[in-house]
């Protein structure tokens, strides 16, 4: 019998593409013969916008990149600006920043867990994940009043010091969360159907993953112990004790397990940070080149100005965001606005590896593999 291949446009409006992403699939019945990822539906010109804003004004825009985990975005940009302008940050501020980022990593992996299982057809885990996430979001709300787009980390420190009663609430959350991670493992890892859907699906070798520029948990799922927190330590990470989680299999299940383990490691880091929180200021007290034309000191951070001019130069700074390596390349021409901002987002680089994972498999496998890559379209398209 003569059969014909079917061209299936999956997305940009589809329940499982996690936003406005489109797959162009060439199907042979249920089997995917060719896959092309089409992105750009959420392009907002963030990088160009950065050239129109002062250094401080751009911080809220970084919140909108990976909106599931916005703290690392804030930090990655702020770190680049601080390196560019040579701003010193008090130790307490660095502790608070790491606390925020690791808490956000837990939040990110909770959302990952829920949405992955939802993609596989189980509707309950996302509710459980969001139940725990809510507690973490309440902590963020205590910190800065926002739940998702924080605009909390700023050059020179953080916007406000820890509020009263924050650390006890955080300890409560961690105590609860440690039990919950065990619960998830019990509920999900032993499920035969889950294992059928995840094991040996969407396999990518370490070499191929590196060639595609994959980073973060998705790369560590292929057995490469690549973690910028260890390889190029920043902030207070050199002093912290944590493992770099990796699994050698390279399949969907390995990528899932990496994230489960990372949740535990993040909680471990959080505990260290919360126990050793140093006293002091949460923002720098030094004065930096106040722009001559205004000279208005900021009301929020009384010493650090709203407008400042870093010396001409360029810097690329990268951090380990929950989804992988997040890098900001910032060029200064000695004015109050950056000359150029380039964002290297983990979701984008991880996403392009999808076709090589799923050609020859079926649509449900595409959904499963795509779920384990854990992309946020705001981060892909910028």
């Amino acid at each position: 019998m003569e059969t014909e291949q079917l061209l299936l446009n999956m997305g940009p409006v589809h329940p499982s593409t996690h936003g406005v992403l489109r797959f162009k699939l060439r199907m042979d019945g249920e089997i995917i013969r060719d896959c092309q990822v089409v992105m750009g539906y959420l392009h907002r010109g963030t990088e160009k916008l950065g050239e129109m804003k002062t250094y401080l004004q751009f911080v809220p825009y970084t919140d909108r990149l990976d909106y599931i985990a916005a703290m690392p975005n804030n930090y990655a940009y702020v770190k680049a600006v601080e390196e560019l302008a040579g701003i010193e940050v008090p130790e307490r501020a660095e502790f608070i920043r790491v606390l925020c980022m690791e808490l956000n990593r837990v939040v990110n992996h909770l959302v990952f867990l829920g949405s992955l299982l939802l993609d596989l057809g189980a509707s309950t885990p996302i509710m459980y994940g969001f139940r725990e996430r809510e507690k973490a979001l309440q902590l963020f709300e205590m910190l800065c009043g926002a739940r998702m787009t924080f605009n909390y980390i700023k050059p020179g420190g953080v916007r406000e010091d820890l509020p009263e009663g924050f650390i006890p609430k955080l300890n409560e959350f961690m105590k609860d969360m440690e039990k919950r991670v065990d619960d998830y493992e019990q509920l999900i890892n032993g499920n035969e159907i889950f294992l059928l859907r995840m094991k040996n699906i969407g396999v990518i070798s370490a070499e191929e993953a590196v060639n595609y520029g994959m980073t973060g948990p998705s790369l560590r799922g292929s057995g490469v112990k690549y973690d910028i927190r260890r390889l190029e330590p920043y902030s207070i990470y050199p002093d912290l004790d944590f493992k770099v989680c990796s699994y050698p299999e390279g399949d969907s299940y390995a990528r899932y397990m990496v994230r489960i383990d990372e949740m535990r490691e993040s909680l471990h880091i959080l505990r260290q940070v919360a126990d050793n929180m140093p006293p002091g200021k949460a923002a720098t007290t030094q004065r930096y080149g106040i722009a001559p034309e205004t000279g208005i000191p900021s009301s929020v951070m009384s010493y650090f100005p709203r407008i400042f001019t870093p010396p001409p130069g360029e810097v690329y700074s990268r951090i380990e965001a929950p989804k992988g390596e997040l890098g900001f390349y910032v060029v200064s021409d000695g004015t109050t606005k950056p000359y150029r901002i380039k964002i290297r987002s983990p979701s984008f680089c991880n996403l392009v590896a999808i076709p090589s994972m799923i050609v020859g498999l079926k649509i449900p496998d595409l959904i499963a593999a795509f779920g384990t890559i854990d992309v946020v379209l705001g981060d892909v398209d910028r």
Partner: protein
Amino acid sequence: MWTGDGMNAYELIVSILYSIDVYDLLLDAFRSAGMEYALRVIIVLVELAVLFGFVLITVMFLTWMERKVVAMVQSRYGPMVTGPRGLLQPVMDGIKLIGKEDIIPAGADRWIFTLAPFVVFVAALLVFIPLPFGYSLIISDLKVGLLYIIAISAVSPVAILLAGWASNNKYSLMGAMRAVAQDISYTIPLALAAIAVVVFTGSLSTVDIVNAQSGTLFGIIPKWFIFITPLGFILFLIASIAEMGRIPFDFQESEQELVAGFFTEYSGMKFAMFFLAEYAHLFAVSGIVVTLFFGGWTGPVLGNIPVQITSLIYFLIKTYAVIFFAMWLRDTVPRVRIDQLLNLGWKIMVPLALLNLLFAGFVVTAGVI
């Protein structure tokens, strides 16, 4: 007075009318007009209206129950606003669906597109005909009741294929193809597991199957077929969940993969028809599971309450227990992949069902029951 054996609902209505001295009057009135058959037609219509009303109310209740069970599992409340504990939510949903625009896609085959939801719904309703709701509460005790049920269940995939094909949508088509593949591979273990029960009873009539399960085994446990052939029960349950198209086997819709599968393009009342059919089917299949393996409406006799009422209550309790299980399962497990399901069907369930049939043959030959 109501204990004529082997009655069906028609005869039950007649005997009730007779016992309140109305039947003779009615019969005389119709006879004098020369329309004796009209009375019969009216009674049958009343019977069907009661069944239809029952199915509609059940479906509405089931949609509410489904949401409440999901909410319970997911530690939230579910519908709470419309009516007490959200009980009127299905009514509101119905009103909303009636108010929706009825869209037929440009490239669709209008006639088949419109026909398909009705075929699905009618097929789901027809399954209720030989389903014994209680003692003598059965529309028609067909001599081939079980065969009839299995045959009617095979109609809905045809309608789903019609819907998927007529929608002119690739997702719909794939959903429909999956539904057919799934149905072909699951009707066989389903039928084989049911045949094991027929081997015990020697009859395809659902009433005979229920009657064969009254009494006890070894004096304590009820003589339900689940205790005699647990393997057959498990096979039948898995196959019927696949037949119902519920998670973990809901490939025909599989939201995360095919958007909504075969009813992607349907809206308004046509969508509601699929929805109604799905829940009517859920109830019917659960009722069949109860009839075949949980002794149907059998249960202890309670004082002088008419057995028709107690048996109906027993039947509903058992059926809702099976429905609850199906809902619970839906909230607990992810979906398997279509090829994995077909593997399970052909390579594991069909051989096991044959083995179970062999076992049933031995049990009957050895004279255990």
